[in-house]
C-alpha cells in the first residue's frame, strides 16, 4: 500500500492537497475570511483615508484596508507559526537551526538573497493587496478571475527569476 508519507515525513502531494484544501474550505465556511498572511503588515500601516478603506480590494491584505477590525490576522499568523512548529518538531524529532541553501552556496550569499527576496515579496504583497495564500489559494477557491490571473503571473515571475537565480538552488 502506498504510504502517505515521504522519507522526510512530509505528505505526498495528493494527501497534502487534501489537507490544505480542507483547511482553505474550512476557513471560507467557518471564519469566512480565507487564509491571510501578509495582511499582518497592513495592521502596522493604517489607511490614509476612510475612502481608501472602502476600495474594492479593501478586505484583502491591503494597505488600503482598515486596520482596526483586522486583529484576527495576527492570531491567524501566530497560528500558522505554531502549527508549522508543531509538525516540524514532530517530523524532525526536535528543532534544529539552519540556513537552508543550494549546494555550493555560501551562508552569507544565501542570507543576502533571502533578505532581497523578502524585500521584493514585501513590495509585491503591498502592491497586490495580498499574497499567495489570500489571493492565490482563497481567491481561486472562490473562482476569482483576478486570483487565477495572479497565479499565472506568479508562476511567470518565478520562471523569469529562475533564469538568473535558479543556479542558487541547484543541488
Amino acid at each position: 500500500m502506498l504510504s502517505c508519507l515521504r522519507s522526510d515525513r512530509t505528505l505526498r502531494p495528493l494527501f497534502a492537497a487534501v489537507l490544505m484544501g480542507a483547511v482553505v474550505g474550512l476557513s471560507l465556511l467557518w471564519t469566512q475570511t480565507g487564509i491571510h498572511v501578509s495582511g499582518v503588515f497592513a495592521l502596522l500601516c493604517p489607511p490614509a483615508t476612510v475612502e481608501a478603506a472602502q476600495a474594492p480590494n479593501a478586505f484583502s491584505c491591503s494597505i488600503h484596508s482598515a486596520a482596526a477590525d483586522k486583529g484576527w490576522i495576527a492570531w491567524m499568523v501566530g497560528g500558522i507559526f505554531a502549527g508549522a512548529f508543531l509538525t516540524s518538531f514532530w517530523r524532525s524529532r526536535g528543532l534544529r537551526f539552519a540556513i537552508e541553501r543550494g549546494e555550493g552556496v555560501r551562508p552569507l550569499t544565501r542570507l543576502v538573497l533571502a533578505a532581497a527576496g523578502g524585500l521584493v515579496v514585501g513590495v509585491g504583497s503591498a502592491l497586490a493587496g495580498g499574497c499567495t495564500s489570500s489571493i492565490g489559494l482563497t481567491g481561486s477557491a472562490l473562482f476569482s478571475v483576478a486570483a487565477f490571473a495572479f497565479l499565472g503571473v506568479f508562476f511567470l515571475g518565478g520562471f523569469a527569476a529562475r533564469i538568473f537565480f535558479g543556479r542558487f538552488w541547484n543541488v
Partner: protein
Amino acid sequence: MSESLSSLLIGVLFGASLDLAGFGSPRRLNDQFLLRDFSMFKVMFGAIVLAAAIYLLMQALGFFPAPDSLIPTLDLAVLVGGFLLGAGLVVGGYCPGTALAGAAGGRLDALLFFGMMYPGYRLWVWLEPRMNLDFHAALAPSHLSMPDLLGTPRIGVLIGLGVACLLGWKLGDHFEARSAAKRAARRT
C-alpha cells in the same frame, strides 16, 4: 467561539498543512521552477479544487456565502504584485506563508526573509503616492468570477478546473520522471 480563537485554530491547521506539504523548505519550493518537483503546483491546484468543491457543496446545503470582498478585483496591482511575489520566491526562497512555516522549522533564512517583508511593505506604502501611475484602476468588473466571465454554472467551472488539475498533475509527473532520469544518468 471568538473571532481570534477561530482564526488561531485555522492558522494552526494551515501552518501544519504547509509544513507537512514540505513547503517550509525553500529547496522543495524552488524545485518547482527547476521542473524537478511539481509538489507546489500539485498541492496548490489540488487544494484549490478541493476547497472550491467543499465550498460549493456547503453552499448547496445552505451555508452562508463568503463575502464578495474576498474576491479580488483584477487590476494592474494584482498582476505586478503577483509577478513580484513569484520572482521574490525564487530569489529569496519563500512566499509569506511558507516563510512562516520555514522559520517555525528553525530556518534562519526564512526568519530573515519574513522580517525583510516589512521594510518592503513600507517601501511600497511610501512609494505608491509618489508614482504617477494608477495601479488600482480596475481591468475587469469588480469581484469578477470565472462563472460570470464564462457564463457557465459554477459546477461546470469546478469540473473544468478538476480536469485541468489532473492534466497538470500528469504533466508534472512526466517532468519529474525526466528530471530524475537525467540526474541518475549524470551520477553514473
